[in-house]
């Protein structure tokens, strides 16, 4: 995640450009965000002595508008995690240039391209990649793709094409951190003949990341959107790599030591997908849906010669009761995420994040007073495996630009569920943010 000097050159160039007196039509705006988080865990499992994961973060962004025909935007982030140094980074979140050419908008550079109209889970968010090094912080950490985006508009409709030559996958938790799962310290080795199965000491380790051959990391997609008599509709198509790997465990028995080495390979595979989404309002209630059909290629979980497609859809409803942005904004949302998944026999590995939402209910409620703070509650219920997540937050704005937040992140459930696996990471969280 550490960036080379190219992005610094971009920033310097941006500033120099803004300062050029000859280009008086330019308009430069910039902002900063400084953030400090105190994270206290409620338990300390073996091998993880630290009960806290305090973190400092600084972000700065700059936007340069050049008349009505273009702009450039960049945002950098410096993050220092006192407990998990792997999370330290100097990172360019986004850096792109826009050209507005009549009905055509062109964007080149690193940017987030969010697709889909669902709120919590987006099956058609093909170019979405996330920083999962701390799962609970992931929603705030989208990773941009370096891509070319063309968006052509006609009335309320648009056609969008995104091409990313080197697709960037999501970042996964590092070994030895709290989000590295507890693998068993032994594995069962099948007996031979009349001899019974035996439990053999095992050590798990990451194997190499591998990318599919051929087009490799090239990703491209098209999305057609429009609004028809109160309905927002989109269809999308994608071909490219998966953003999460298909975990595959390779085991090897060493007779000399009597131990098994279990290697967790992370092969990414290519996907083809067709998706669609909609959103409308019925009797004051927002209703939305989003679904996609996936056809994987090179997925190591699929036996050679077989083709196993799957479908993932999300249906949701939301309701707002408020004085609009400001006084008492109440927003509630409920979504159901379901995958029609062909591999019933497949047991996802603990890091296989894609399957949390095989059959899940997600809820969110917010009551906010903009400028003063508010309350938030989020929950996710993994109906397939029995895991759950509850998050409660209270925030205050003690001064202009200053935000103080206290949060409790609770998770648990069945031990074999992903969320249950990480029940040890229940935590209390205090966060102070200054933004201007």
């Amino acid at each position, binding site marked *: 995640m550490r960036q080379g000097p190219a992005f610094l050159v971009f920033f310097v160039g941006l500033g120099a450009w803004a300062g050029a007196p000859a280009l008086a039509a330019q308009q430069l705006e910039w*902002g900063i965000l400084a953030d400090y988080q105190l994270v206290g865990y409620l338990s300390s499992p073996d091998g993880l002595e630290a009960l806290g994961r305090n973190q400092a973060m600084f972000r700065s962004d700059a936007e340069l508008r050049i008349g009505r025909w273009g702009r450039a935007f960049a945002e950098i982030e410096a993050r220092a995690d006192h407990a998990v140094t792997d999370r330290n980074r100097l990172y360019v979140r986004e850096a792109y240039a826009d050209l*507005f050419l009549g009905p055509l*908008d062109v964007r080149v550079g690193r940017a*987030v391209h*969010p697709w889909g*109209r669902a709120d919590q889970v987006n099956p058609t968010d093909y170019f979405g990649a996330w920083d999962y090094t701390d799962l609970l912080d992931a929603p705030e950490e989208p990773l941009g793709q370096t891509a070319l985006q063309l*968006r052509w*508009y006609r*009335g*309320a409709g*648009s056609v969008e094409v995104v091409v990313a030559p080197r697709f960037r996958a999501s970042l996964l938790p590092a070994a030895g951190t709290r989000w590295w799962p507890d693998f068993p310290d032994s594995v069962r080795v099948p007996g031979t003949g009349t001899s019974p199965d035996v439990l053999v000491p095992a050590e798990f380790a990451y194997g190499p990341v591998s990318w599919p051959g051929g087009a490799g990391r090239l990703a491209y997609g098209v999305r057609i*959107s429009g*609004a028809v*008599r*109160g309905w*927002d509709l989109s269809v999308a198509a994608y071909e490219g790599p998966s953003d999460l790997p298909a975990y595959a465990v390779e085991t090897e028995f060493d007779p000399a030591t009597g131990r098994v080495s279990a290697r967790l390979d992370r092969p990414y595979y290519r996907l083809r997908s067709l998706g669609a989404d909609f*959103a*409308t*309002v019925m009797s*004051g*209630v*927002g209703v*939305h849906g989003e679904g996609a059909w996936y056809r994987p290629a090179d997925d190591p979980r699929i036996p050679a010669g077989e083709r196993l497609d799957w479908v993932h859809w999300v249906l949701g409803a*939301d*309701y*707002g*009761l*408020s*004085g*609009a*942005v*400001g*006084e008492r*904004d*109440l*927003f509630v949302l409920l979504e159901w995420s379901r995958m029609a998944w062909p591999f019933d026999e497949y047991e996802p590995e603990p890091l296989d994040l894609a399957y949390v939402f095989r059959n899940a209910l997600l809820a969110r409620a*917010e*009551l*906010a*007073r*903009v*400028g*003063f703070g*508010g309350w938030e509650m989020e929950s996710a219920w993994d109906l397939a495996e029995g895991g759950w997540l509850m998050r409660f937050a209270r925030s205050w*704005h003690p001064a*202009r*630009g200053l*935000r103080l937040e206290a949060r409790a992140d609770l998770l648990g459930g069945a031990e074999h569920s992903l969320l249950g696996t990480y029940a040890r990471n229940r935590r209390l969280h205090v966060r102070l943010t200054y*933004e*201007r």
Partner: protein
Amino acid sequence: MPIPSCFPRLATSILAASALAAVGANPPGAAAQSGTFTGRQVMERYDAQQRTKDSEVTIDMRVVSPRGEVRERVVTLWTRTGTDGTRRVLIRFLQPPDLEGTGFLHVENVDRDDDAWLYLPALRRARRIAGSDRRDAFVGTDFSYEDLDPEDLDAHRYTRVRTEDHGGRPAWVVEALPASPQATQESGYARRLLWIDQERHTLLRADLFDRDGALRKRLSADDIRRVEGSDRWRPHRLVMEDLTAGRRTELLMRQYRLDQGLGDDLFTERYLRRGG
């Protein structure tokens, strides 16, 4: 960030709504006849002068609570009225930081419910949202959407009750009452008293009475100046006092631009994302 479902009503922009004060120059000789105007005629002049094809204004908002807490917002607002009379509104929040970049788009329809979208920069997504009640507060201020609506002349009965000097300006005082059961039901006010400048036809003051007949809010419009490059007059400062709650909202208008020839394409998701 929560979804401000009441946004839709914004349709009736602040601009047209600053309405409550927007007016143009008086036709020659009108003042001489002004003593004979009925309440309806006064309001027709007010209404005729306030309407523009399109407008743009940046507004500084200050909301002061009874305890003296101050909340500030800055928005830029674009409006356009189509040939069929329907309105489109695009709003961009510039401040505070936790709202910066938030956008709201409202498109009025003749034959069906209005369309409204909210753009949340943190999600980088535009979301279709539901409509709101005219009586809801506008973005957390003491203005309701109704306060910001253009005057609906057919929905009210107007009576000129007196003339008086207001802040050194000759003014008609007009009483406005809902004209139908539907208008009564939709409005948060049983009665309004409106002070209309006799020369500029701008609103100078409004006393707003709730359904129990009690004086609930008072609007004051001042710093009324001619908009640069236009023959229109606009208030550059509006203060709404909630006399019951003890709160106050001050709107400072800057950078008015009227009738620039804004196209319908500005009022689309493209510009909702882009920010005008």
